[in-house]
């Protein structure tokens, strides 16, 4: 009996299942490719499959953290993919897509505006997108799904408008650092993830803000009666989510060295929701887990990489992700929870 209770104590830990899935995926990769965990230092940078997964998961990690805040307030933001496209489009349009070749060294770095202007502008536009959602939801009382659906549809139109309907290529190597560069041997994007995570964790866990957000998600009326400024906080959550999507947009556009209004961040909303849910945050609002969301993003990227490695058509991931969302949302439903609870207490 003692082993059973030991097992039960571990499986009851919050991130147990998420960690277990990740470990299983990694173990499978190790069996399929013994070199999977091999790291090597090339030109002073770390290289390897695991580093690659971390680097590719970076935009999703950042979006998932922002989205976790929104979902905690019992909201949803399905416009994150469109905001990724918009922020990338703004950055690319401001840098300008001119290729100037110089003798010998190849490409010359040309930009119409310095990076110190480009990055704040792109992030500013993304923040405005988030605030737009926030105003519609918290002040006008629109259902979150409808409010963000509007931006999901029009956002891509706006991104197309900014780039004139073309894929704008960026020929400015300092910009590449964001999504491709290395700092102290580690991908630069991971430092951005760490910075965002630190700021959000400090804000939500070292102040009462996190508690307020969870209170709004659990019972908006009660939290308002308790004196929490529900509207302002809900608004701020959407704004932060927009900003996070904007940061991810910079990483994505820097990584692929171009901005594509149609395809940048396409279907990101599903990945982000999935990452948040896998990380243990309930879609019904309430308690949220920022580090869990990062874990969720890692699972999704590892799954994607694994599916590529196995050689199955990459489109299959869409089917798998859809099924996982179905399964997880059913498992999180009250009915299943109640059924599980009774079976546990009777056994």
């Amino acid at each position, binding site marked *: 009996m003692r082993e059973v209770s030991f097992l039960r104590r571990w499986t009851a830990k919050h991130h147990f299942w998420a960690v277990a899935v990740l470990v299983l995926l990694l173990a499978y990769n190790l069996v399929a490719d013994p070199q999977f965990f091999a790291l090597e230092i090339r030109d002073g940078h770390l290289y390897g499959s695991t580093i690659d997964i971390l680097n590719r998961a970076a935009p999703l990690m950042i979006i998932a953290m922002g989205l976790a805040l929104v979902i905690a307030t019992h909201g*949803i933001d*399905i416009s994150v993919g469109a905001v990724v496209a918009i922020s990338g489009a703004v950055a690319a349009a401001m840098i300008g897509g001119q290729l100037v070749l110089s003798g010998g060294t190849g490409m010359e770095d040309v930009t119409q505006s310095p990076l110190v202007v480009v990055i704040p502008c792109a992030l500013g536009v993304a923040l405005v997108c988030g605030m737009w959602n926030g105003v*519609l939801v918290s002040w*006008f*009382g*629109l*259902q979150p*799904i*409808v*409010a963000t*659906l*509007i*931006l*999901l*549809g*029009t956002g*891509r*139109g*706006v991104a*197309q*408008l900014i780039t004139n*309907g073309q894929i704008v290529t960026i020929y400015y190597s300092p910009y590449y650092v964001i999504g491709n560069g290395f700092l102290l041997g580690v991908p630069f994007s991971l430092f951005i993830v760490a910075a965002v995570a630190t700021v959000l964790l400090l804000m939500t866990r070292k102040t009462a803000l996190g508690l307020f957000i969870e209170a709004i998600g659990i019972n*908006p*009326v009660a939290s*308002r009666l308790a004196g929490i400024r*529900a509207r302002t906080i809900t608004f701020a959550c959407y704004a932060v989510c927009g900003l996070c999507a904007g940061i991810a947009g910079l990483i994505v556009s820097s990584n692929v060295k171009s901005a594509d209004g149609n395809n940048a961040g396409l*279907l990101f*909303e*599903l990945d982000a*929701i999935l990452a948040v849910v896998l990380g243990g945050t309930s*879609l*019904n609002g309430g308690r949220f887990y920022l580090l869990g969301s990062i874990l969720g993003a890692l699972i999704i990227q590892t799954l994607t990489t694994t599916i590529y490695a196995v050689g199955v*058509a990459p*489109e*299959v*991931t*869409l*089917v*798998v*992700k*859809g*099924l996982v*969302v*179905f399964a997880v*949302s*059913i498992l*999180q*439903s*009250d*009915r*299943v929870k109640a059924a599980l609870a009774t079976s546990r207490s009777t056994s």
Partner: protein
Amino acid sequence: VITERHRRYLPLAVTIVLFLVMYGTGSYLFEGFFSLQVFLNFFIDNAFLAITAIGMTFVIISGGIDLSVGSVIALTTMVSAALVEHRGWSPTVVIPLVLAMGSGIGLVMGLVIQYFRVQPFIVTLAGMFLARGLCYLISIDSITIENSFYTELAAYRIPLPHETSITFNVVIALVMLVIAIYMAHFTRFGRTVYAIGGSEQSALLMGLPVARTKVLVYTFNGFCSALAGVVFTFYMLSGYGLHAQGMELDAIAAVVIGGTLLTGGSGYLVGTLFGVLMYGTIQTILSFHGDLSSWWTKIVIGLLLLAFCLLQQVLTGRKRA
């Protein structure tokens, strides 16, 4: 004095007036805009949108939402094209099959929504990605349909007076509209849908078959999406995983612009028809203008949807905390 009844018709009235204004503006600005054929083209080019929007109207009146319609349309075109072209099946088998498939997808989503109490948007969002993923499983590329039944039906024009014509798709859409109006206003099912949207709790207490009706609403919407997919196949003559991308926004916009309350309980199918006509007018004005790109349609429709959502908030005076 504005009574409750007037209030309910107000969004519909606004839509009809706005449609007339836009149609008038288009006719004033562009030569050849004010012709019967151009007006009929609204129906020809948007028959599939009308059919999806009909199903969506029921879903929204019941207080739910369905984000999967666009991808179910895409899946229908893909399955039809693959079976007809690659397997050589007869369209008389394929069409009932895809209709059953669409209804089946709707049924499963409805069951999950009803019996596991999962929010409709998350279930239908998962359904949306699942259906698109299934399209790509069949083929990543577009499949052109050369089957004579499809090509002949696509080319067939039903002549109308004054040398105008419509396609068979328009007939399907209009028949569907008549059936839907009958269902909404003259059957027990329709009244139950309105009752659930008004207050699910009250509907339950009144002893109405809430669970069955809600599942049926999503099943019906799945059927409508599949029928729209069949009509879309006649229109495009191809199956492609990227077909009808973002159609969920258009369908929801048509319904809401048509005066159906997003909170459920109130709305008219005639309004949805005007919502679709409004979409057609915007599209046609942009194409007559020539300089403006097609993504402006998305932006204008999004803004119109927003305007009508805000109008609803003002009219109902209901605000979420």
